[in-house]
């Protein structure tokens, strides 16, 4: 029943492998594994919409883009499999994790029904009125395309500017 801990161990292990592998190709493959694991985490946390996006984006598109990049550039070669440990960087990240862990006691328990997110008026309003007001049964779509439609327009414009920016500015000779 309890899949959480092995799943999180798998995800963290894949992330660690990504961090320590010296070969960039190996790191990219470990990152694709990590993305797939995290997509399963989303499904376990009852977020199928996010899981679907992550599986398509993280394990699919992002991996292809990374692979394309190293195909176009270089892969550092060498006999070492594992990257040499960088002590200052390790200090910074351990410090960050330590500081964040001190806030752990203040966070609500995972899955408890009386957290601020679940009892907030926003959540209950969306769940109660999504079908009667917006006529869709998937509350995520209702929030995405109707209640927070302006936000979504902003996101779409961000994606648009990334595409046009890279095509027009960076890839001047793309279609020459």
């Amino acid at each position, binding site marked *: 029943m309890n899949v959480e801990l092995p799943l999180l161990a798998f995800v963290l292990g894949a992330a660690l492998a990504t961090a320590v592998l010296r070969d960039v190709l190996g790191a990219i493959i470990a990152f694709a594994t990590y993305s797939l694991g995290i997509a399963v985490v989303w499904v376990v*946390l009852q977020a199928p919409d996010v899981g679907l996006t992550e599986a398509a984006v993280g394990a699919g598109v992002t991996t292809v883009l990374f692979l394309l990049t190293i195909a176009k550039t270089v892969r550092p070669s060498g006999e070492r499999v594992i990257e040499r440990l960088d002590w200052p960087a390790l200090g910074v990240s351990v410090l960050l994790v330590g500081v964040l862990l001190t806030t752990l006691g203040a966070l609500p328990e995972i*899955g408890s029904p009386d957290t601020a997110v679940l009892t907030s008026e926003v959540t209950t309003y969306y769940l109660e009125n999504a079908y009667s007001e917006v006529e869709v049964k998937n509350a995520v779509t209702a929030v995405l395309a109707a209640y927070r439609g302006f936000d979504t327009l902003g996101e779409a414009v961000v994606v648009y500017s990334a595409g046009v920016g890279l095509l027009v500015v*960076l890839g001047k000779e793309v279609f020459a």
Partner: protein
Amino acid sequence: MMDLLVSRDYYVATFLLLGIGTYVMIASRNLVKKVIGMNIFQTGIFLFFIAAAYVEGGNPPVLTMDAPHVSPLPHVLILTAIVVGVALTAVALGMVVRIYAEYGTLDEETLQEVRGSE
């Protein structure tokens, strides 16, 4: 103590992912690996949001399913953030490819030397 860690396991995982992401971004000298580190950091934050939306025994926020539902709002925020994240990654990688075309290296320190000697 152990109880605290187990009952908030996703938050602990979030913090560790943020730590790993920071480490990769700082320690790695290869620009492509820095972008990977940024992606790991990003998913750590996504995990925080989705874990906050979760309710024990809840169903996905699809109204054909029985209550209780998990909160839909963090899902929407993260859904759009993932797609914006891939656009961000792609722009970063496009720049990495151009840097390589210009300087012939992706190593941070070599790049600084090349730029310093110009």
